[in-house]
């Protein structure tokens, strides 16, 4: 028998759903609202819900720092690191999913274990290496680092998606004369598109919002948006409105990307759950 849903229950759950959703969205909403306040209104207590709207913070932020430079760095670092990561991870995940060896599971666990260590534990050696190799404050250096930081997650996600693809189909491709590269390009990749897309999106978001390494390894030239935000919580004191304006500018692109790709993202994250 189908579960009976009464109108009251429906209303209750809908209200609860909206409440929960709004609570999750509230910090972003509040940041965006604060960014349009004057500095005085921003620190008013109790907080003001109705206030004089102004865009002076945005003007100020753009005049004090070059938003587009940081935006460009963020795009380069997140997109570059994820694309390179995928190039490495697709063959790796293929091997682990379709040609597993005795130690494949251990290898996967080992890769994941690198994510269990707090990044600060390797800060000093990586900082010294980057200093000696002249990679500090370079976009290239950060792309390389972010590739390595996110690679375990990319491999894991792809491995999970690839496991869902029947091996028979790849064997059929092999019988049909496809080389390994063609097998991956013509058969595996198109079948795994939802999985690859959600891996791509999720890791772009992770790389976009990464702050530990970007703050420690960049200064002016290669700083992405996360470092750009941080520059507004500075020794000069907290400027809530400007900080909010910078934050809004930093998260807007990724929010828009997420909004347009949410269908793909959800499909990818639930890929293979229902046959």
């Amino acid at each position, binding site marked *: 028998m189908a579960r009976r849903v009464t109108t009251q229950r429906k209303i209750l759950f809908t209200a609860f759903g909206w409440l929960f959703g709004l609570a999750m969205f509230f910090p972003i909403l509040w940041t965006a609202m604060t960014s349009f306040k004057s500095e005085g209104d921003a620190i008013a207590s109790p907080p003001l819900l109705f206030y004089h709207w102004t865009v002076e913070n945005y003007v100020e932020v753009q005049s004090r720092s070059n938003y587009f430079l940081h935006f460009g760095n963020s795009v380069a670092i997140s997109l570059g690191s994820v694309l390179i990561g995928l190039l490495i991870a697709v063959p790796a995940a293929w091997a682990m999913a379709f040609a597993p060896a005795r130690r494949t599971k251990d290898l996967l666990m080992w890769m994941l274990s690198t994510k269990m260590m707090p990044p600060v534990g390797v800060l000093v050696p990586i900082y010294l290496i980057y200093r000696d190799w002249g990679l500090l404050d370079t976009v290239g250096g950060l792309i390389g680092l972010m590739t390595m930081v996110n690679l375990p997650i990319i491999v894991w996600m792809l491995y999970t998606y690839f496991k869902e693809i*029947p091996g*028979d*189909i790849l*064997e*059929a*491709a*092999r*019988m*049909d*004369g*496809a*080389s390994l590269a*063609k097998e991956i390009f*013509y*058969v595996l990749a*198109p*079948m795994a*598109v939802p999985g690859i897309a959600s891996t791509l999106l999720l890791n772009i978001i992770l790389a976009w919002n990464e702050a530990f390494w970007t703050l420690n390894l960049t200064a002016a030239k290669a700083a992405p948006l996360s470092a750009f935000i941080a520059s507004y919580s500075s020794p000069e004191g907290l400027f809530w409105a400007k900080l909010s304006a910078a934050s809004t500018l930093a998260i807007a692109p990724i929010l828009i990307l997420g909004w347009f790709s949410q269908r793909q993202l959800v499909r990818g994250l639930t890929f293979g759950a229902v046959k």
Partner: protein
Amino acid sequence: MGAIRLQQVSKSFGTTAVIPTIDLDIADGEFAVFVGPSGCGKSTLLRLIAGLEDTTSGRILIDGVDATRLPPAQRGLAMVFQSYALYPHMSVYKNIAFPLKMAGADHATIDKKVQAAAGILNLTQYLERKPRQLSGGQRQRVAIGRAIVREPKAFLFDEPLSNLDAALRVNMRLEITELHHTLKTTMIYVTHDQVEAMTMADKIVVLRAGNVEQVGSPLELYRSPRNQFVAGFIGSPQMNFVEGAEAEKRGAKTIGIRPEHMSVSRQSGDWVGTVGIAEHLGSDTFLHMAVEGVGAIKVRVEGEFGLHHGEKAYLTPDPAKIHRFDVHGMALG
């Protein structure tokens, strides 16, 4: 040409020998069926021939050329999988065209061959569809189409009909046999269904635990099984096996008699028994009987036979068609 020869081929996974050692010859144009219970190594053997698994030792010759170390694509064989293994993101046309595309054929050639294959398999009106929009039988035909366009030396079928329903299975069985008559290409067909083996094969290879139990034409296997396993596996309903006094009387450990090789009478006969279950199919009647001093015996009688549960009947086995087996289950001459 498509003669396939296995010389001392063996396959182990770790320490488990799936196929101890096999020697086998399949002639060009032959329809060979590998049959055996599940886990007997028949699919592994097919995959060794296909090149999807590496042999542990031995050689595989295709048209006299050593193909043991060749990758699957270079062996010139085509395979049809149990799961069809179609490319779900490609249309039927692109599925069938895929091997040609991989071989670098030009558009005109691809189109000509795909259309020809689609014509043979009645797929012309489905070419633009995706596999998920097709029925099981149509999917299987696409898989066969993909194999045909390559003009392979031999077709390998891995239980291609087991995902289809019973009625469709009979149809596809006929279609594949028909295809063999048309193309005259070597076909190797793996199944656990002895009816498929009997109806389709020129040559049946019966496998058990990775060993070849017997190789022969369907009727050879039916008439003179080499051992008790083959005798029990080939033929439906299964052969009756009797041990004890009846067997000793004929100088054997076990005797075997097929259900269709006994006559039934209400009045007289060699054995007397009681009918347990009577299955009336119209064309045949199957009687499951408990026979005194012999045991459970299944009998097949042609047409209607009005015996029912609990009734008494006499059985007379045809003496010329009794199979005798020794203590090791091997047939006695």
